[in-house]
């Protein structure tokens, strides 16, 4: 018996979510007395692979072939399933990232495993059943999902489980799974990364703005504030619908749900659909000139004031605080 964890990398470097899922799996393993086996697919250097031991992996299976350099969900799912079977895994853990959302159901279907996607806490064990807390109704509620199948798959929401160091040693093994050529029917033609931007779902701080900004030409101060804080930028639905900002920045019930440590909402009134996507944020700051804006009801800190007056002052104050 073991817990298999799929660890994602970007261009050969592990993402924070990789350490989150290993920490998550290790916490389950400590409860149940099993071992954590990490599976890495792609060209990750051996020195990086061994870092996974710091978070509780006792073994790392390393799949590293040119063919698998890019993410192909059918092939990657087939490898995860192969590794889960060969290591007799009873639980498979992945990140509920953009790639994980496509992978986890494929893995679950092939293993005929129940899947809890969007896990936000460690599972509780009740005999052969695992109970997992997940987000539901776009952050307006939580659902406790019981997984009753022999093998269980859990996809953990980014930023919802703390990275924790653990003791132990790790071994690294090259792994050569058998893959069907039909699993490579999807071809990656191009990858376009905005290198200067922080990924929104994984960001620890998010600076978000709405119609109160009056037009796309005023986003410079939002980007500057985000830059000073090391934050990702986001927006409300009307803003992306108007084409002021790309859809990929739209946060809310029909956009991206975020759970950063700090969410700063500027010029956003706080429609129920927007609040749904941000309610998992640990601390919410609202800046709005309308003291009746519904967002103030869910905010931890608020400033009633005009964004065009407050934001430049806030940037100056943060620069002074950070000494930049």
């Amino acid at each position: 018996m073991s817990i298999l964890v799929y660890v994602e990398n970007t261009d050969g470097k592990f993402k924070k979510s990789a350490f989150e899922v290993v920490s998550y799996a290790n916490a389950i393993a400590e409860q149940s007395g099993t071992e954590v086996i990490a599976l890495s697919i792609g060209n990750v250097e051996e020195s990086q692979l061994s870092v996974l031991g710091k978070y509780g992996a006792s073994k790392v299976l390393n799949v590293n072939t040119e063919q698998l350099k890019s993410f192909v969900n059918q092939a990657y799912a087939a490898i995860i399933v192969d590794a889960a079977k060969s290591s007799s895994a009873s639980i498979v853990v992945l990140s509920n990232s953009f790639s994980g959302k496509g992978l986890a159901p494929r893995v679950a279907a092939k293993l005929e495993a129940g899947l809890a996607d969007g896990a936000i806490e460690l599972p509780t064990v009740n005999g052969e059943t695992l109970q997992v807390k997940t987000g539901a109704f776009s952050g307006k509620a939580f659902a406790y999902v019981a997984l009753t199948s022999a093998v269980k798959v859990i996809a953990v929401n980014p930023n919802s489980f703390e990275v924790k160091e653990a003791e132990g040693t790790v071994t690294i093994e090259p792994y050569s799974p058998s893959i069907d050529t039909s699993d490579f029917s999807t071809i990656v033609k191009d990858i376009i990364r905005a290198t200067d931007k922080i990924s929104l779902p994984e960001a620890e701080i998010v600076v978000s703005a709405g119609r109160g900004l009056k037009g796309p030409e005023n986003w410079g101060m939002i980007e500057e504030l985000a830059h000073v804080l090391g934050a990702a930028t986001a927006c409300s639905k009307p803003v992306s619908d108007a084409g002021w900002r790309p859809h990929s920045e739209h946060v809310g019930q029909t956009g991206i749900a975020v759970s950063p440590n700090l969410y700063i909402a500027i010029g956003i009134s706080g429609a129920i659909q927007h609040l749904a996507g941000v309610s998992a944020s640990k601390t919410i700051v609202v800046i709005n000139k309308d003291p009746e804006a519904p967002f103030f009801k869910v905010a931890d800190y608020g400033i009633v004031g005009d964004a065009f007056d407050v934001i430049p002052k806030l940037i100056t104050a943060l620069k002074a605080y950070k000494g930049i």
Partner: protein
Amino acid sequence: MKILVCISNVPDTTSKITFTNDNTAFNNAGVQYIVNPYDEIALSKAIDLAEGGKGTVTVITVGDSSTEATIRKALATGADNAIRVNALPRDAWFVANQIAHYAKDNSFDLILTGRESIDYNGTQVGSLVATILNIPSVSISKKLDIDGNSATVEREIEGGKEVLTLNLPAVIGTAEGVAETKIPNMRGIMTARTKPLDVIEPIEVAQLSHIVKFETPAPRGAVTLVDAGDVEKLVSLLHEKAKVI
């Protein structure tokens, strides 16, 4: 081109979410149901692709007769016909098996789903259907072009996007950017009543998961207001009290 669009019947986005039976069941009282907003994007894309006699659009949902108002709305929007699998959805595996079972017998070129449903926020059904049918899938697409037997898809990734090509048949999960959402017009509403809506019985599927209970988030404490002229105080609160910077 034959296109199957999977639609989910979900509470309106403005619904207040409450539960009954000791927090084990969703409280339907006073809740309006709608086509899942992401599925509307899938449906709109399918209608665009089939326009001008280039294809047909079938919508499928798994649900009891109460979902028929939502299905009729999809027909009014422009779908040609509809299938209702007569069962309450138990979990994503159950729903996906019903859809895959129907799709297998009716050889669709393209199956579209929304990227997720706004009720249980599952992103599972599309990829599960694809795996059961052993065809490719993309779970979150932001752009979709079809050329003959091939699809070009832009997929969202952390901090960017990826351009993929895949052969049909395939299952694609759609998000904003794929199509402008269509609204039913009067002619659509009138013709929707006469379009075929077939009800089929579910197949047996092993239950792999179930929801034990629900919980609503704890209310947040009262907001601490900071004077607009004293932003330094906000900075110190975020550093010293909230410890987030």
